[in-house]
């Protein structure tokens, strides 16, 4: 199963890199998100707040990359007629869909760096990391957790044909509930438990704490715990949804 996962990650990144539309998005989006971070808060004289907003925008971008990669890739697999063939293979579907989400998260990890660099170049956002080691660990931990959250969503994409639209629709709610657009303390109290089970909440906190100085390790730990929980839920959902898709005959688009 490991070779299938590694080859899958590599080939899905390769496939995406050969799509001019995807490629242009990877270049343009970080600039866009760096601009959002700068203009979202009127904090030009508060460098720490500006960096925090930039990091929030970068995690927003990572979530977008994962959700679009997983939903878009699955829709593309339906059109290509490859979804049936990967389902027909003896490798569990988790090891087929998971690499698509991980590939999206790796592109998202790059996007964090690109957003910060563009922020620094265009808007003088200070990029000063207080705990470099924790920061270096927090980014892949965040990418893994968000990638595995994408796996749960991807399971629904196996079931529904309009998967890409569902993916687009899931971007904003997660941005808001995870505190990436506004602090979680601004949200109604009944929404907060939902924030706690979403990977972007902890991933953002881990990266933010590492960059600004704080206690990032518990948040990194939460990212890893959530990754395992998401993997278990996503894997189970994929088994169940694959069975339903076989019963409905919905693996093929046409």
């Amino acid at each position: 199963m490991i070779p299938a996962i590694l080859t899958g990650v590599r080939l899905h990144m390769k496939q995406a890199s050969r799509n001019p539309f995807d490629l242009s998005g990877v270049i343009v989006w970080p600039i866009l998100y760096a601009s959002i971070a700068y203009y979202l808060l009127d904090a030009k004289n508060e460098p720490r707040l500006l960096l925090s907003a930039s990091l929030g925008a970068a995690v927003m971008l990572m979530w977008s990359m994962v959700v679009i990669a997983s939903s878009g890739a699955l829709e593309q697999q339906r059109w290509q007629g490859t979804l049936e063939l990967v389902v027909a293979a003896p490798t569990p579907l988790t090891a087929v869909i998971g690499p698509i989400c991980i590939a999206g998260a790796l592109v998202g990890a790059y996007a964090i760096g690109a957003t910060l660099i563009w922020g620094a170049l265009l808007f003088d956002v200070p990029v000063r990391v207080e705990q470099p080691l924790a920061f270096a660990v927090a980014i892949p931990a965040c990418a893994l957790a968000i990638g595995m959250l994408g796996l749960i969503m991807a399971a629904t994409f196996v079931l529904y044909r309009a998967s890409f639209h569902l993916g687009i629709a899931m971007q904003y709610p997660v941005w808001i509930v995870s505190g990436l657009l506004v602090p979680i303390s601004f949200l109604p109290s009944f929404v907060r438990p939902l924030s706690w089970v979403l990977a972007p909440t902890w991933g953002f906190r881990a990266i933010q704490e590492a960059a600004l100085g704080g206690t990032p390790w518990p948040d990194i730990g939460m990212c890893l715990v959530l990754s395992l929980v998401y993997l278990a839920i996503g894997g189970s959902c994929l088994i169940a949804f694959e069975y339903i898709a076989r019963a409905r005959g919905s693996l093929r688009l046409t």
Partner: protein
Amino acid sequence: MSFTVERGDLFGLLGPNGAGKTTMIKILTTLLLPTAGSARVLGFDVRRQARRIRGRVGYVFGGDRGLYDRLSALDNLRYFADLYRVAPRDRRARIDSLLELVELKGRERERVETYSRGMKQRLHIARGLLHDPEILFLDEPTIGLDPLGARELRETIAALHEAGKTILLTTHYMYEADALCERIAVIANGSFVATGTPADLKAVVGDNTIVEIETFGIREETIERLRKIPGVKGVGVETRDQAQVLLVQSAVGADVVRALLNELADVVTGKVVTREPTLEDAYVELVRSA
């Protein structure tokens, strides 16, 4: 609907569009669940033991879908080799031998999107054979191929069969089924209407002679009159471009051509051919009478 395919057989599944051929193959390759009844592949139940079946069968469908177009043929084969758990040490040799078999050696590093339809179809065959499956399911593999490409693919299928591979083939091309299959089942209206060797099926119309008459603008009442001519056993009509071709079955030795042409005196007619029955004639007769 019940049938058994023996090891090493090349078994053909024929039937009109919507008869259920592809559905049957998808059930047997575990992509669909049967709504009723049961099916076993190599002794494994398709409903409860899907994963055990998947590693032992290969599935190839016709057309140019089912490949990662922006990747090379080599990348496609590497990925599917991993998905089908081909041991890493064997992977390279296996891919090389399959590229040789389907005559894509030397082109394997080119992107699939630059391939012709025939090349894509041959790549599909290679993909389906990566894990050396015990059974190969071929769902209309030559559809849309040019005559040369289709012939090459048929030669590949025949070579696989000679090598001992069990193959289940669906096709709309009767000459293809006649040339390749040892046994054939004809599906119509959701059930088997005949099963046997191509010779068995031809025997359905075997004691007949077929008269093909090209006509233009023939009416239904004229066809009814033709059916009543002594010695005529049946009349079918096929549309070919602008023409309606009458396929008239008559008893061997019965000279019905003159009588037919007399009845068609007020119809524009073209070529008239008398010939032995083919598998296609048998198929048409079986499906019509179902």
